[in-house]
């Protein structure tokens, strides 16, 4: 079984998605493929004990992306 989610690169920072993948890597086999404007994340063999794994993962990636954006805004101000 595998799950898949696509992240718009203009919304989700690549570094944030990579950091989220590293954080969740114990709970499935994550692979990331990048295209021009999308990051495709596939999770093979997701941990059966974690319902909504992809939703949690997406929340983490969004949180890190927001942090990234705020840090960048602070640095450029």
């Amino acid at each position, binding site marked *: 079984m595998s799950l898949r*989610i696509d*992240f*718009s690169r203009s*919304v989700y920072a690549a570094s944030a998605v990579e950091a989220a993948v590293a954080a969740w890597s114990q709970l499935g086999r994550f692979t990331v493929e990048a295209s021009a404007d999308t990051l495709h994340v596939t999770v093979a063999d997701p941990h059966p004990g974690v319902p*909504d794994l992809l939703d*949690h993962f997406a929340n983490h990636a*969004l*949180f890190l992306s*927001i942090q990234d954006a705020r840090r960048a805004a602070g640095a450029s101000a």
Partner: protein
Amino acid sequence: MSETAAPSSLDELVFLEDGRRVAFQLHESVYPIDAVYGAAYLFLDRCFLYVHRVADAVLEVRLKPKAAPAGPEALEALAGEFANALLDQVVRVQVARSTGRIREYYMARAFLSAPASASIDALLAELDQEELAAEALEIEVPWQAGGRSE
């Protein structure tokens, strides 16, 4: 993450609701991404959020409550809360942008017009003055009192 749902609306802001989640389509000319980030951040603790670019300058935000399945009323209330938060963040972004220059000016002025060393010197001088000044209340301490009685 796809839904087939009839659109509902909060006066002007249209959202989709499929019984499990609500979805908004937001134009970035009205809702800049910083405002969307700000509103999303406020809901991360109680909702699963997914933000997706569906077209140039159009973002779709999907919210799914983390708690047990919510009814249509709860989802509509959630949509209303998110719409309010979004508007709040839009105002914050606009105020931040419009007052950014003046804030920078005040900060620069505060740092440049009064050298730090001068204020530290003034504080030290003030402390010296206080130490040299006589005790204002003239409260006798025991060893002084004893000395006088002898």
